[in-house]
C-alpha cells in the first residue's frame, strides 16, 4: 500500500519534535479522520529563510510521513518559496501516496501555511 519512501519517512521521521522559541507555529486538525499536526518554524537572523523546522503529529503513517517530508522540503527555503510547496511536491517526493491518503499531505502543507501566515500577520501588526 505505501511506497518505500513513505515507510522510510514513517519509521525514521526527520525533524520531529518541538522548537523551544519558535518564530512561527501552525496547528491544524482534521475533522474527517481525527489527525492533528503542529509545525514549528525558526527563521534565520534576517527573518527571511527557514533555519529550522519541526513537527508533531497525531496521525497515521501517511500523516507522519508527509509531515516529515514537508519539513525536509521547507528547510532552508525562503518564506516565499516555502509557501509555494504544493501537495503534489510532497506526494511526488514520497514517491506517491494512496489516493485515500492524499488529504494527509494537505494537512502538512496547511500547517506550514498557517504558521508562516501567522508570522507575517504578527510582523505586519
Amino acid at each position: 500500500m505505501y511506497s518505500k519512501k513513505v515507510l522510510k519517512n514513517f519509521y525514521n521521521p526527520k525533524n520531529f519534535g518541538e522548537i523551544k522559541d519558535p518564530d512561527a507555529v501552525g496547528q491544524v486538525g482534521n475533522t474527517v479522520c481525527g489527525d492533528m499536526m503542529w509545525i514549528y518554524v525558526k527563521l534565520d537572523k534576517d527573518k527571511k529563510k527557514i533555519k529550522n523546522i519541526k513537527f508533531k503529529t497525531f496521525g497515521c503513517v501517511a500523516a507522519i510521513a508527509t509531515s516529515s517530508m514537508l519539513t525536509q522540503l521547507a528547510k532552508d527555503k525562503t518564506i516565499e518559496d516555502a509557501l509555494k510547496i504544493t501537495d503534489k511536491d510532497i506526494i511526488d517526493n514520497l514517491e506517491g501516496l494512496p489516493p485515500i491518503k492524499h488529504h494527509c499531505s494537505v494537512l502538512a502543507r496547511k500547517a506550514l501555511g498557517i504558521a508562516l501566515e501567522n508570522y507575517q500577520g504578527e510582523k505586519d501588526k
Partner: protein
Amino acid sequence: MKKKQIYMDYAASTPIDPRVIKAMLPYLKNYFGNSSSLHDFGNKSAEALEKSREIIAKIISADPREIIFTASATESNNLALKGIAFANREKGRHILISSIEHDCVLESAGWLQKQGFEIEKIPVDKYGLIDPEVVENMIRKDTILVSVMHANNEMGTIEPIEKLGKICRTHNIYFHTDAAQSFGKIPIDVNKMNIDLLTASSQKIYGPKGAALLYIRKGTNIEPILHGGGHEFGMRSSTVNIPAIMGFAKAAEIANEEIKKENERLSKLRDTLIEGIRRSIPKSHLNGHPTKRLSNNVNMRFDGIEGESILMLLNAQGVAAATGSACSSQKLQPSHVLLALGIKPEEVHGSLRLSLGRWTTKEDIDYVLRILPAIIQKLREISPVN
C-alpha cells in the same frame, strides 16, 4: 535471520487447520461431481454435502434441513435480513438491529430502509452490552425481526442472546444472531437460546474461505435472494462448493471437540496480554467488557496516538494486528462499534485489536508485551497530544 512472524489477527481470518485440508483434498482432487447430478459422480458429492450438514446441525442442536450453506457470513446475513423482511412485509416493516453489528448487517438494513422498511438501532452500554429490557421496550406491533450479533468482532463483548431470544419468542418476532465470531468458541444451542436464524462462518474457525451457513428454524417465513436451480432446499441456488463445505464441517467438528480446553488456554493468554499492557503502558484502556468477552479478543486503546501507525510499527517487528482507527478504514470513519460504546472519536483513533488463536503461544504474548511499550512511546514522542 528470518523475520519473526506472529499472527494476532485471528478475528479477521484464520489459517486452515492441516486436519481440515486433509478432509478437503479428496474433494478437490477426485470428487468433482455436481451434487445435483444423478450419476455416481454427483452422488459422491451429494453424500459429502449431507454428511457435512448433519455434522454442523448436531453441533448447534438443529435439524440438518435447517442448515443452508452459503459462501460467506456476509451472504448469510444478507439472506437473513432481506429474506425475512421481504417475506414478512405484510405483517410489518419494523426491524431492530444492534448498533454494533458488522457492516454487512448494517448495510443490508440500510438498503432495506431504502425499500421502505423502518430500521431502529438498539443502543449498547459502555462495555458494548445490550440490555434486554431496552429491546423489549423497542418492540412494536409491526416489528418483524430483531438481529443482534452473538459476540462482537471488534471488541469481543458477548451479548445476552438467550434472553433476547426469549423476548422475541414471547412477542412472536423472528430473532437472528450473527455468530460469525462466536461459533466454535461459545457453545450454541439454537433451541435453548430461542434462535430462529443464525449465521456462522468457516474462515473464522480454521476452515477455508468460501463456506458459511445460515441456520433457518423450520417453519420460518423467508424468501431466498438467489434464484435458480433450487439448491439448499430452494433457499440458495448455486452449484454447491463441496470442498469448502467439507472443510467447514471438519473445522466445526474440531472446534467443537476442543472448545472447552481451547477457551481455557486462550482466556489465560488474553488476560495476561491485557494485564501486561495495562501495567507497562500508561494511559492504556481496555475496550469492551472485562469478562463477558470472547476468549481470544484483546482490544486496547492508547491516548494521543493513532492505530494505523501502531499497526505498521508492530508489522515491522513481525506482529499482525488490527485497528478501529478512521485512517485504516476505506470510508475514513472511526469504528462505529467503539463510537457506540461512547468512546470519543480521537480515542477510537488509538485503538488496537490483537486477536488470538489456535497457534498463539505464551512466547508470542511475551514478545508483544516486550515490544509494544517502545512502539507506543515512540509514537507519543511524535504526537502533540499528551
